[in-house]
Every structure is written in C-alpha cells, then in structure tokens.
C-alpha cells in the first residue's frame, strides 16, 4: 500500500513538472524561432554589407622579385571616393612592407576631372622612373591612345578603379568596376519596379566622357527605355560636384512637375539630388551610386531608394597587388586576371544603418 502511495506521488510530481516545463519549452521554442528569424534578417543585412565593403584582405602568395617598387597612379579627380580606394592601396603597401618589400607610389589627380590634365600627368610620369603607371581613365578617347604610346615606349601601364581604357587598348591589366553599364541598368531597373514601370525619369551623370559615368548612364537609359510608360526626360552632368547636382536637380524638378524618379550615376549625384528633392517636398524616387555619408543618411531616411556601393577598398588593395606583379614582368594569366572585377552591391534602406556604422561609425 505504501509503495503504491509513493508511486502515485512520484507520478503526480512528474506530471506536475512536465506541466510546468511544457509552456516553457513552447515559449523557448517560440523565442528561439523569433531569435532565428531576427538572426536571419540581421545576417542577410550583414552579408549584404560585408559583400559591399570588404576590409579583410591579405596579400596572396606571390613573392615579389624586388624589394622596392615605385609606382605612379593617377585618377579622375580629388574626391572621397578615390580616398577610399587609397586606403586599400595603403593597406596593401603596409602588408608588402611587413614582408620586406617597399612600395612607394604617387596617387595623384586634378581637383576637377580633366582628360587633358590626366594626359599631361601620364606624359610627365613617363619621364620618371616608375615601375608601373596606373590610371583611372578620365576619357577613353583621350587617354587610351596615350596609354598605347606609353606601352610602346616600354612603360608598364595598367588601368584601375572605375574606368578602363577603350576596347583594344594595350594596357596590361585593369582592376576595378567592369560592370558600370550593368550597375546603371540595375539601378534603373530597381527604380522602374518601384515606380510600377511608369513615369518620367531624369538621369544625372558625373563627368562628361568618364567611361564609368557614361556607361552607367547608358545602362540606365537602356533599362528605362524598355518600358513604354517610362521616359527619360533629362540627362545632366554635375562634374562630380554635389552642389552642381543639387542645382541641376532643382532645375529638373522645376522643369517637370510630374518627374517620378532620378537615376544618379556617380557619388555626388545622389547627394545633390536628395537635397533638392527634400527641399522641394516632392515625392521623387532616387537611385544612385556609392557610399557618400550624406547619401547613406538619405538612404536610411528613405529619401534615396537604393545605392550601388562599390568596393573601393578592394579595388585599391588589388590594384597594388597587381602593380607589383606587372612590375615584375608577370603578364595576366595564372598570377592575375587581365580584368579584375570588383563588386558593386545594391543596398536599400534596411541596409543603410549597418553600412553607415561600418563605414562611418554612425548610429
């Protein structure tokens, strides 16, 4: 009898414990599901941001043949975008230095984009004792022949960053964005979808003749023109000035009361466009390029719909790695590709917070 009573008590105790634990388990499961969902969202955003800007780089296993290299690099204009590229170059230089290889370089540009200035710089560089001359082509028509000349003179020439030389140019290699046209098209496609494939669109471009800007503008125009109810009403060049972009956008807004969207093809375009749209109080969808701090703030506020962020850091890092190989006489192939493509990632409002935090420490 006593054993029976003890058994009953034990059974009741187990039942009670199970009854107490069951809701906890259900609650925990629900919590775990919430947590997993949140992590998924976070990891999606984190993955997007990580793809867009990758600071984690190490030199490959290539062993330089010399212990000192001297390089000349020139780009379109003095602008924060190329400062970001410079940071990748500096990191690679430090890593080479850690390996006992000194890379000295000049990384110069005019204050305003100018193909003529770039041409003069290249010709001047040709007089110097540089192992490699690199250029972010300001104008394919002007610069590509110069590069061919330099190659013919025995200089080792490469292109990098945002713009390659013209097709058929004899430059050795290119590191940077190889898909400007696609980037422009992709941004425009996102805009069209957002607008329901209907409305008038303006396109802002940077420097007239700059291959990257022109390619993006072309890609955008082609994407928009696919849709019957969409129309590109204006195309304007801001000469890589956000102030100019602002003025142009205001003018465009004045000209078109029914403007539905703006495609911005460089870093300064979306900043100026967003300022003008905010000031007008109108609802115009903006898509644009790059990671300007102000543009990212507009993105997080929803003024800008999306931004195509290029991985400037990787461009810079890979450029210097390629420079050393070219200087050693290694030709494209197994050691490095003739064209090294770097990513462009389209980020939206949800990604803006993390991107601002990662790039600028903004919260």
């Amino acid at each position: 009898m006593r054993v029976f009573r003890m058994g009953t008590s034990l059974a009741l105790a187990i039942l009670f414990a199970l009854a107490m634990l069951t809701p906890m388990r259900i609650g925990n499961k629900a919590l775990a599901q919430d947590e997993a969902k949140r992590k998924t969202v976070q990891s999606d955003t984190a993955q997007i941001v990580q793809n867009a800007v990758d600071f984690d780089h190490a030199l490959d296993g290539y062993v330089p043949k010399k212990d000192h290299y001297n390089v000349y690099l020139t780009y379109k204009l003095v602008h924060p975008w190329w400062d970001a590229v410079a940071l990748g170059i500096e990191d690679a230089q430090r890593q080479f230095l850690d390996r006992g290889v000194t890379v000295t370089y000049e990384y110069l540009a005019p204050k305003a984009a100018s193909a003529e200035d770039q041409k003069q710089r290249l010709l001047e560089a040709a007089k110097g004792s540089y192992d490699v001359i690199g250029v972010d082509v300001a104008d394919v028509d002007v610069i590509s022949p110069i590069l061919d000349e330099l190659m013919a003179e025995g200089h080792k020439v490469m292109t990098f960053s945002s713009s390659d030389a013209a097709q058929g140019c004899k430059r050795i290699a290119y590191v940077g964005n190889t898909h400007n046209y696609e980037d422009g098209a992709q941004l425009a496609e996102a805009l069209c979808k957002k607008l329901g494939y209907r409305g008038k669109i303006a396109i802002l471009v940077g420097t007239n003749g700059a291959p990257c800007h022109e390619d993006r503008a072309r890609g955008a125009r082609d994407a928009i023109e696919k849709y019957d109810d969409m129309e590109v009403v204006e195309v304007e060049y801001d000469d890589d000035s956000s102030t100019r972009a602002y003025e142009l956008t205001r003018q465009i807004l004045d000209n078109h009361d029914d403007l539905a969207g703006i495609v911005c093809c460089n870093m300064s375009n979306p900043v100026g466009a967003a300022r003008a749209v905010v000031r007008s109080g109108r609802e115009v969808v903006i898509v644009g390029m790059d990671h300007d701090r102000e543009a990212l703030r507009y993105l997080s506020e929803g003024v800008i719909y999306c931004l195509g962020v290029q991985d400037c850091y990787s461009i810079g890092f890979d450029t210097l790695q390629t420079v050393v190989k070219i200087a050693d006489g290694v030709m494209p192939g197994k050691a490095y590709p003739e064209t090294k493509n770097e990513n462009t990632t389209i980020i939206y409002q949800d990604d803006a917070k993390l991107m601002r935090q990662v790039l600028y420490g903004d919260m």
Partner: protein
Amino acid sequence: MSDKRTFLMHVFAGALIVIAVIVGMTLWTGEGARTAADDAGDKVSEFYLQELAGRRSQAVAELIGTEFKQMERAVDLMMPEDLASEDSLRAFIGRVETLCDLDLFAVVDEDDVVYARYATYMGGSRYEFLQEGRELSGRLVSTTSLYGASKQVCLAVPVYDRAFMGKKLKACFVQVDIDDIISTLTYNDEDGGETSCCIYYKNGENLTQMGFGPIGANENLLNALRGQVDVSEWRRVQESFDRGRQGEVRFAYKGATETLYYMPVEDTSWMLAILISDSLIRDQIRSVSDGMLAQSTIQILVTSIVLLVYFGMLVFRMRRVSITMLEKEREQSRNVGERAERSEQELGVIKEIAYRDALTGVKSKYAYTEEEPAIDEAMRDGSIGEIGVLVCDVNNLKYVNDTYGHSAGDEYIKAACKLVCNLYDHSPVFRIGGDEFAVILRGEDYAHRHEILAELNRIVEENNARGEVVVAAGMAEYEPGDARLRDVFRRADRRMYERKALLKQLQGANQGPR
C-alpha cells in the same frame, strides 16, 4: 506562583527592552554611519573623478603638445638637401618618423599634395585642414576618417619658407591613432570594475573606436544620455559640451548607475569623458563601514545573547537561592515549632516534676509556693472567699526510718499521704516537707472541714492505737485580717503541733508505734 511568574516576566521584559534599545541604537548609529559613508563616498568620487579627468585631459593635451613640438622640431631640422628630390624628402620623413617616434609624418605643398614616407597623394578631400577655403595659421587638431569607421587624429602645423620641387610647402602633419592614447588612459581596478575614458566631439560623437563603459563605441554620447537623465539635465550637459565646459552627470544606463565627468581637452575641440561606476568608491567605503557595522552588530548580538543568558542564569540562580532559602526557613520554622513543642513538653515535664512530689504523687512544696502568691493576692484584694489550710505532720517517721529503714519510712510517708488524700479528695494536697503535708481547703472540703478533720483524727487515733500510720493535723480558716496564706498556715501549723503533742501522749499510752 503568580508572583514568581510576574517577576520572571518583568525580568525578561526588562532584558528584552534593554537589548532592543541597544540593537535599535546600534542600527540607528549604523544607518547614520552609512549615510555619512555614502556622503563621503560621493565627495571622494567627485574629487576622484575631477582629479582623474584632469590628469587624463592633461595627459592627452601633453601628448598632443609633444607631437606638435616634435613636428615643429622636424620642420626646423628640414634642410635644403632634404628637399632636393622626392627620394631625399621621403628619406627625411622616414628619419623624422623614426627619431621623433611619429606614426605618420607628412608635408603638404601648396596644391594639397601630401608627401609621406612611402606615398605621395592628394589630401584635399581627405584632411579637414586642407579643405577648400581653409587656411592653416597655427596648430590645428582635427580627425580623419579611415575606411571601416576608424578615425585618426590629425595634428597639423603650418610650414613657412620651405619649397619642394618648385612648390611652396604649406603644412606638415602627423596622424595619431587616438585609440592607442585612450587605451592607456583607461584604468581597470583590481575588482574588475573599470573606469572608462573616452574622447568625444562636442556633438557627442565618439572620436575613438572604443566603447565607453556601457556605451557602445559607435554610440553618440549625448544621444545615449538622452532619456537617461531629465531634459533640463540633458540640456545642461549638451550646452557644456557645446561650450567646452567641464561638468558631471549621473545616470542609469543599461542597468548600471554611472557617473560621467567631462572636461575639454586643451587646444582641441574635444571633450574628454571619464565614466565611473557610481558605486565604485562609495561601495568600497560602504563595504568598509558595513564591515565595521557588521562587526559592531555581531558584538552587540553576542553581548545581547550573553546578557540574555546572564539574565536567565541570574534568574535561575535567584530562583534556586530563593527556593533553598525558603526551604531552610521552612525547616527552621519547623524546627523551632518542634523545639517549642518539645520545650513545652519538657517544661510540662519539669513543671510536673517540680509540682509533683516524686514519692507520694501529690503536689510539691514548689507547687505550694507557686499557689501561695495568687492566694495572697486574692486575700489582699478581698476576693479570696472561703479558704482554709490543713497542716499535717507524720508522726514516728524517724522511728520508722531508723528501725525499718528508709524504704519503710517512704512507705510510711506514702501511707500517711494516702490517708490524707482519701479524705480530702476535693482539695490539693502538698508535701511541703519530709513528713509534712498541707491541704488548701476550698469548696466541698472546706464546707465539710470539720467533719473530715474529725474523721481524720478518728482514723489517726485508731491507727495510733494499732501502731499504724499517724498523722497529726491542724486546721485553720481564713479570717479577716489575714494578710497572707502564711497567716492561716501558721495557725493551722500551731494547731497541728498541739495535736501532735496530743497524739504523742496517746501513743505513749498505747506503747509506741509498731
């Protein structure tokens, strides 16, 4: 029983009140001590923070000042040959970096071209002091952002009268990793608590990549404070930051109470902030005071317990002593009673012995003398009433003693006494001498005194004739004028002798006693 319980209750109640008062006073004193300790902690904390912030701010300012001095010295050391070519300039910069222990040293020409040890690059879009329209006229502290949100401090000074490759040099600068400075200023205490130090811009933005206590590295300090303190307090802090004034604010953040002390860093537009866990110092002071308080409490408790035990033992002891004393008193009183009873008995016996004649069993001469004063008194006050005295003397006792021994003599006396007692059975008979008896006559015997005496005389005369016991008796009555019983006795005694003489004569006639 009830008194005993009341007493015990009073004792215990008293003891408890005393203990309660002691404990209460201890707690009150303890609370006072704790408040005082807290106040002291606050003051010490404030002083400590001020001192700490001041030293750190000074350390940062000194470090920046040192870097500036090094730079200025480097410019002084710049010789024309160092500016002869790009290689010589880079070599000079390298030497300066090594000699002056500078992280990154560079010079800038009039076109904002930056010449560093390994690179020549455009600085216009990168450095605040090179921004368009800005002219460097003296020392300038600014920051420059690096990719990945990290920042470096940029310390720049103008350069005069120097040219490189036909371009005027306009400035030189160093880049310093601010995190390296701050990490040396953050103090970890032995208990794992941390006194955080950080530098912020006046808008609350973190200059460093380092967290600041519970505030994240990427959080704006002023934004983090918003909502943690009331609006007026927050505005005060914001204004202090804006105007570069030092101040203090206490706030709860992410479950911890923190005290923030901030002060401007000299020659910069930065605010150095020190964060200390509010209770770091106060807790230490409080732990000491609490320890002392706990010690005192333990002492008081032990004392109270000892007192309680002492009281208990005292009461127990008193109770035992009382019981013992009570028992003794009872025993004593019982003994006294018994002794009194025994004395009474003994007295009775003694009295009996004294009052009773051992041989004959009648009252003794002592009893007679005891009786006499009362009768004398009655005579004096006239309340005596009728009373008479019979005096008897045993004849021939000497003859019997001498002839038949004293035992026979005793028997003879006893026979004489019996004779008298048989006749005077209502009156006390006293043996007042060896062969003398006295009877005090009252009541019945007094009323029939003559008849009884006559009967006695008749029996005596017969005895006398038969040679048996002979008692000579003389009787007298109280007469007015008698002052004392002795007066009556004398008359009776005289008559007894007269009778004795008579009986002698008669005895002679009957040939003496047999």
